[in-house]
């Protein structure tokens, strides 16, 4: 495979033919914010939070192939603002009441809001959906009011578990994650599925029953460090 170099925010990094900008950045210890992308899953490029400028054009870093000599912008005030808008859109599309959500502290959406300084008074309206909860399954519950349509569960179930428990249905603002049966109990979803594992759902939509508050608020994943810090630490190794 051909190796080449390109720059992110002026820092020269190594890449190989076939890598996306994000893959190369991850290896080099440069974190590019992302929500729909997850290690081990197909790239989807739908949340757009990983938008970077490559050669002056805005592209999603998770799908854009890295190119030799390319100049990529990542941490600029302008891109920070775009990403903050996108994260805020996702907050407002669903019902994200952090104080009552058991995912608080482990939630990537929330953590992204922290990282992107989402603290100014909002200008966006709240869409306040009213989607039915699904607690039919003995071990798993779904609160789709918190779904951000990242589709990670869909790809995990389809590609890793080989099951197809989840899938997108509908179009536009009505597009949502549907189930292969009437309710979750009717599917072959299991607690041991990769799709159900804590790392796949970035928010509090897929809930594993009876473990919600095993770790108290304040001692959770993103209480310990900003999202992306593991990747950034690679850079200093």
């Amino acid at each position, binding site marked *: 495979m051909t190796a080449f170099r390109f720059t992110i925010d002026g820092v020269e990094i190594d890449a190989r033919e076939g890598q996306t900008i994000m893959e190369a950045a991850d290896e080099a210890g440069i974190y590019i914010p992302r929500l729909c992308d997850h290690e081990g899953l197909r*790239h989807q*490029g*739908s*949340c*757009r*939070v990983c*938008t970077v400028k490559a050669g002056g054009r*805005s592209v*999603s870093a998770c*799908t*854009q*192939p890295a190119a030799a000599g390319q100049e990529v912008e990542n941490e600029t005030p302008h891109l920070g*603002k*775009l990403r903050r*808008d*996108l994260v805020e*859109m*996702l907050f*407002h*599309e669903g019902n994200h009441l952090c104080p009552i959500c058991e995912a608080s502290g482990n939630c990537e959406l929330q953590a992204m809001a922290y990282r992107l300084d989402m603290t100014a008074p909002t*200008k*966006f*309206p709240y*869409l306040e959906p009213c989607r039915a909860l699904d607690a039919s399954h003995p071990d798993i519950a779904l609160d789709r009011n918190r779904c951000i*349509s990242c589709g990670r569960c869909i790809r995990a179930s*389809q590609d890793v578990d080989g099951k*197809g*428990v*989840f*899938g*997108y*249905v*509908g*179009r*536009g*603002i*009505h*597009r949502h994650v*549907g*189930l*292969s*049966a009437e309710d979750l109990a009717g599917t072959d979803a299991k607690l041991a599925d990769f799709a159900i594992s804590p790392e796949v759902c970035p928010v509090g939509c897929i809930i594993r029953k009876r473990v919600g508050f095993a770790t108290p608020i304040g001692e959770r994943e993103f209480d310990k460090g900003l999202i992306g810090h593991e990747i950034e630490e690679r850079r200093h190794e």
Partner: protein
Amino acid sequence: MVADAPNGNDITRTGFDPGAEWFAALHEEPNGIDSLTLQTHTSETAAVAEICGGFDNDPHRMLDILRQVQERYCWISPQAMRVIADLTGLTPIAVEGVASFYSFLSLSLRGRVTIRLCDDIIDRFSGLGAITEAFETGLGIKVGGTSANGAFSLEFTPCIGLCDQAPAAMVGDVVLTALTPQKASRIAEALKAGQSPEDLVSQRFGDLSPHERAERMVENNIRHAGAVLLGPVAADAGLRNGLDLSPPQIIDTVEASGLRGCGGAGFTTGRKWRMAATEQAERRFVICNADEGEPGTFKDRVLLTERPHLLIEGMTIAARAVGASQGIVYLRGEYVYLRDHIEAVLADRRARGLLGKAILGADGFDFDIRLQMGAGAYICGEEGALISSCEGLPGEPKTRPPYPVTRGYLGFPTVVNNAETFCHAARILDRGARWFSAMGCQGSHGTKLFSVSGDCLNPGIYELPYGQTVQELLEMAGAEDAAAVLVGGPSGTMIGRDTFHRRLCFDDLATGGAVVVFSHRRNILEIVEYYMSFFVHESCGYCTPCRVGNVFLQKAIGKFRDGKANPGDIDYLRDLSSTIIETSRCGLGMTSPNPILSTLENFPLVYSAMVKPTRDRIRDTFDIQSAIDGARKLARRRSHIFDRDFTE
């Protein structure tokens, strides 16, 4: 019988017996399936299996399968989806993903005939309200409803490509134009009396040729024929010339002509063909984008009706140029009335050796075309989404790169061109690159079809060389009192009188051809709000900014119309628009804020006049009276704070 039936389930409870298949599917009881249910299940299963079999159980033909199931059962039942999933090897949720994506497919039971009223802004301005009322009264159902006996459903649908003869509607597979309330009532009566939609067009519909049927339903309204497309055309002269040229020579000719894509984006056609031709691959495809969904555009309708041979000729030339042996014409679901006509043209050309094996006797020149019907999704005009749709997937744009010319349909290099582009290509091969490139202006060569509609005397099709001014076109169309003109449809630009001198060409006002005229009587904000609701309806929902951001824009325009906009909301509109444009994944989101941005630019007073000032940094847009009204009624008392002569 009148019933307010919000979904299929309620209809069944009225006791109507529809022929039982779907009835059974709805009443699926896990415990104690009775024999009738079992029987009807079996018959639906067999029928759906037969439909799947007709397409070799190929998951890539999902859209065709679902269209046929919809046609037969008036919905796609859970049972049908399970059968289809089973036979095509997909998961049931994947089938539901497709079935739930397209407007013309339904997951709840619809009537045997669906009446779709076009609710484009032009139709609204042409009296859609009264026509809707006439249909509602006549059929005894509201828009969105289905009649109790399962005969009719009534719906709104976005632009069906008949703006020059609005108001218009689809009734089953036929279209009816220039509707009046009287006409609408008569249609409703006739349908209720048992006439078929085809009877409404002609009592001898079956005896008419497909072309005659199309002519009977729809006026062409060709107002100005240019030298390239709508004037006299020598049959297959371009194709014959193409046979004397090598594929690279064909591409050179098309490139030398300066032809650019006519869908609006204007990519150089010759370059596109060359990229597909030079990509290493076992197979290649040529696809005609006849999914013209941009509100106000109807030029392809006229080409498909009057120049279908030229279109197929152009595709055949493209196939020779890039080395494709298979092609697809993707026809938007709204143009289903042209399906038989196109099929007849394809059959005729096969019979005459112009399609199929060894075209015109040229050894190894094999090319055939299938017709792919769409099913009501504007996004499928985007080339990646169109390819997804042809592959039997939801019409979602594909990740780029790779581009379709390198990895398109089924992963093979694919040329997707607009219908008009193929027609031009055929004419270029006939008359030569120089002839074509001499027309038009620098950077925009040849002629262009403009679809003019709205407030003008002569709506219809104008074939003009590129480079005319908007003013010149307006004069031809009898639109002297135009106050605003939308060039390129809602994803284009809305301009005012002071810029009617701008030119229709790629370097100034680039357009796929829609020119929608609005007189001073029209409310700009009403138009903008309509177009934003259109984009909200048509966004595929794949990416965040387009899915969510357009809803926010629509709501913000609503605030302006209600007089509830804050002074900062003008900046908010600009700011949110630029985020959507910059972060969206495809052309839809990159252009959907244009109705707002171009009117903010060209009609700023329309917005500033609606802003409520903020006093003492207290938002006047928060309306305390309406906020407490519900509680006031519930508590049966007035407010101590806000109802007495209370001075804050």
